[in-house]
């Protein structure tokens, strides 16, 4: 398994794509950030925590954020929903709102149950994430290369805010690095 270890080590330096995403979201006019935290979003969340112009709202479940950002749009503000793929399933019926009302919704989804996953319980929702989103009418694009996350988010933000519909970016585990709690437990 030496190859796997080498891939993990190549991710030792902090990734810069969250900084790109932060600038892109600021340029897009995002003022409300709704989230259930994920480790993959932690750097982006820290950037918004330090930004007094943005309202960062922690949710009890991801579907709250879909409704909150519908309210934000009704009041003239743009937002983004940060969530892990496991939270996508929680959102499905609530996505009726942006789909049927012609509202923008930008969702940035960090993937589990994807490349290199160690936890079998993450597989069902992770493998179902894209199909579930597309089934309710969300436009989905994937980013599996750290260098392409920024432009993928830029494209989805434009789709969402200029054509008034929900768009999701799935940020793959190939970008985030696969966790392995079992290895951590052995150390």
């Amino acid at each position: 398994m030496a190859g796997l270890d080498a891939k993990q080590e190549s991710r030792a330096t902090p990734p810069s794509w969250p900084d790109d995403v932060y600038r892109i979201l600021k340029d897009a006019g995002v003022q409300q950030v709704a989230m259930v935290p994920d480790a993959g979003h932690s750097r982006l969340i820290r950037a918004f925590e330090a930004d007094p112009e943005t309202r960062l709202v922690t949710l009890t479940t991801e579907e709250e954020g879909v409704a909150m950002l519908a309210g934000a749009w009704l009041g003239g503000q743009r937002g983004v929903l940060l969530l892990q793929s496991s939270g996508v399933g929680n959102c499905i019926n609530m996505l009726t709102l942006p789909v049927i009302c012609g509202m923008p919704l930008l969702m940035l989804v960090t993937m589990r149950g994807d490349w290199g996953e160690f936890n079998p319980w993450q597989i069902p929702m992770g493998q179902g994430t894209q199909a579930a989103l597309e089934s309710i009418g969300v436009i989905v694009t994937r980013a599996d290369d750290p260098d392409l996350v920024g432009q993928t988010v830029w494209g989805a933000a434009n789709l969402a805010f200029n054509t008034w519909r929900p768009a999701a970016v799935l940020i793959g585990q190939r970008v985030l690095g696969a966790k392995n709690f079992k290895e951590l437990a052995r150390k």
Partner: protein
Amino acid sequence: MTNPNVLLHRRDVVNELLRDRGDLLVIAGLGAPNWDVSATGDHRNNFPLWGAMGSASMIGLGLALAQQRRKILVITGDGEMLMNIGSLATIAVERPLNLTIAVLDNERFGETGMQKTHTASGVDLAGIAAAAGFRTSRIVRTMEQVTDIRDLAHQGKEPVFAQIKISPDALPFVMPPADGGILTTRFRQSVLGDEALHN
């Protein structure tokens, strides 16, 4: 004073909540609360829901944060509120001063055959809201208390939660437009002006 032992009628309650509404912005939860709000007259500053059960309170939060100078009143049902009870924690933490949530509590799922909700077994929504952090959270049983909630909504000094006990009447449907695009666009145009049509 109305007799606290006689349950209030839902349309009397909503008529009072929306009396002299001024520039109040109203979110109406799906089902009977939507028909009740619509029975007071279709209005561009209403956003009545036909689906997305559980969304009303959080739409209210997003709107309250975006429009901090306006007063926001969410009128919804006990079943709708119970479906997203966690939102009371989120809203209490965010503490939007301009948001009032009024739950019309008939202790029933009205649209599906009047099956009992948890409030029929004593679940205390106002107590849950208070425990989450709403400093003003009340169970309302008289029209005078409804008037107090109406006035608090217009004052906009703190988040307010009201669990208003009503009789389980099944009333004629009074429907607003059902097209989500129309409801969204006219609400935004009313709140934001014609600029809303261009972005």
